[in-house]
């Protein structure tokens, strides 16, 4: 299989997508600056904080000049863009660090959380979906489907709070938040693992319904089609029919859509990281928004957009690889 991968066509698709992504990212950053310019938010007051209340007009005026607030937003955007391209994303007021350093320190924790949660959601979602599809209308199917709909409707922050209440307070088996115990000086893998269970579990549960319902639909459809009927007629075992035939054809459309789940994953991470105090990039976004830390907020919005575009590219690549009817050159 490896030798037959269409590397050239895939590389051309990646190149084309990058060409499209650049203008989208430009427009998004421009939009971020335009919205900020239209808002009542005053960067000078945010910068000076409570000191602005007692400062005289001359000081504020000089500060205004230093910060370049009086320039039109388009030129501020251009300044931000050029320095961002050279690696300087500005200074985060709320974290008291350069924005690039905030991202570098926190990205790894968010990636860990999202990767673990996503893997659990895909595996558990597939298993539940297959179980439900095996006997449509059975008690198991109804339980799984109803549970999936209820979880899909449940706010993820509410699930997170109930999980804290149950696992950390009532049962006392897992820590309620943070990355390590407060007493612990160092970040050890064991500490991180126990602190990861609840946030990753809740994030996985919030992503689970989508996989379960789609796999159930896909496998259910496949079970009613001719290849499965043929396999049953040949006397293959139910296990082979289910896993070898129905799951294979039912799972593919779901797998190819995985990349397009990035926005939902980011949304879930925003809420889960905030509830659990997980020191990731999504929690930093909420803190940046609460304190209107514009440089950090602008950088994180751009980063999230890039992640979504990357996810879409991944979805297209998987789709083209797994579905032989689709040509990369047509996408």
């Amino acid at each position, binding site marked *: 299989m490896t030798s037959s991968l269409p590397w050239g066509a895939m590389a051309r698709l990646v190149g084309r997508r990058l060409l499209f992504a650049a203008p989208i990212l430009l427009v998004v950053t421009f939009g971020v600056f335009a919205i900020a310019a239209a808002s009542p938010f005053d960067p000078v007051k945010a910068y000076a904080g409570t000191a602005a209340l007692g400062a005289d007009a001359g000081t504020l005026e000089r500060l205004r000049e230093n910060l370049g607030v009086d320039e039109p937003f388009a030129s501020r955007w251009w300044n931000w863009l050029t320095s961002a391209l050279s690696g300087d994303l500005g200074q985060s007021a709320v974290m008291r660090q350069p924005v690039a350093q905030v991202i570098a320190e926190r990205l790894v924790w968010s990636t860990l959380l999202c990767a673990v949660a996503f893997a659990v959601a895909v595996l558990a979602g597939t298993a539940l979906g297959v179980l439900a599809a095996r*006997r449509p209308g059975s008690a198991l199917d109804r339980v799984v489907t109803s549970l999936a*709909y209820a979880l899909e409707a449940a*706010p993820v*922050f509410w699930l997170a709070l109930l999980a804290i209440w149950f696992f950390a307070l009532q049962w006392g088996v897992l820590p309620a938040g943070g990355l390590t115990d407060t007493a612990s000086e160092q970040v050890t893998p064991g500490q991180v693992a126990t602190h990861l269970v609840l946030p990753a579990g809740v994030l996985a549960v919030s992503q689970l319904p989508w996989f379960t319902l789609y796999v159930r639909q896909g496998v259910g459809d496949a079970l*009613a089609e001719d290849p499965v009927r043929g396999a049953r007629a040949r006397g293959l075992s139910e*296990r082979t029919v289910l896993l070898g035939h129905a799951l294979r054809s039912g799972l593919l459309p779901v797998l190819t859509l995985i990349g397009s789940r990035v926005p939902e994953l980011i949304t879930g991470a925003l809420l889960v990281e905030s509830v659990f105090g997980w020191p990731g990039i999504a929690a930093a976004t909420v803190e940046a928004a609460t304190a209107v830390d514009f440089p950090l907020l602008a950088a994180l919005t751009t980063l999230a957009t890039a992640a979504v575009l990357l996810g879409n590219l991944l979805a297209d690549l998987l789709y083209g690889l797994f579905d032989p009817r689709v040509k990369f050159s047509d996408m």
Partner: protein
Amino acid sequence: MTCESPSRPTWRSYGTDRRSTRTVRVRLSAVLVTAAVLAVLLVPPLVRLDQQAVDLGARLLPPNWSHPFGTDDLGRDLLLRCVYGLRVSLLVGVVAAFTATVIGTVVGATAGALGGWVDRGVMRVVDTFSSVPHLLLGIFIVALFRPGVWPVVVSVALTHWLSTARIVRAEVLSLRSRPYIDAAVSGGASRWRVAVRHLLPAVLPQAALAAVLMVPHAMWHESALSFLGLGLPTHTASLGTLIQGARGSLLAGQWWPTLFPGLFVIVPTLAIAGLAGAWRERINPRRRSELML
């Protein structure tokens, strides 16, 4: 696994004998939606109780006969607080969903009907908007324009019109190639007349369905923003504000101030989705029931 009983073959096609379950589900959804709407409309004028009434003697009572949902840390009745919270959340959800549907329908219909570079340009804008995660864009807008109800409504509306625009555009594109539109055009009907007399009536049911399905989504969005402390101001408590406010009690072990506002988000969401699912099967009978949310 091999001993299947002959009366229940596993390859039986989907959804043939579930008619009755479906009817029950639709009726239950209808009852719940009606109950929720009646509650938020009638309870405030009819029940002359102050939802903000503080009773420090009755702090954090677990659910009991006089307070079915218990009381919060200031002794306020949680059932009443939840109904008022649902009222605020539902109002924000309906206004935001309506605004988003109007924007989406106008944009989608314009793109589909005019075609050419307008269509390409509009769809590029839609693509750009959808590459920013919705909640993140909402957080960004609300953070800069808060506090207040309007930033929340605007941010939810601005992030939710995209799917409606796509649906309406696709519908208009498929209508444009139908013979009766050709007949109207060759009969001398103006562009405006074709749009108003033929395209709009065909598109409206789809747009209305999208609007109804959007209400729970918008509610969810609003409660997430309020929960993060960026949404509605605390004196207009929505369900998200209630859950946020209950965090202290939860850490002290009281589960009811957190549990019930969450159920007030889930139950209306499922009921609206159940009703909309039945409606979709009626207007798109060929498309088998898909995922509802």
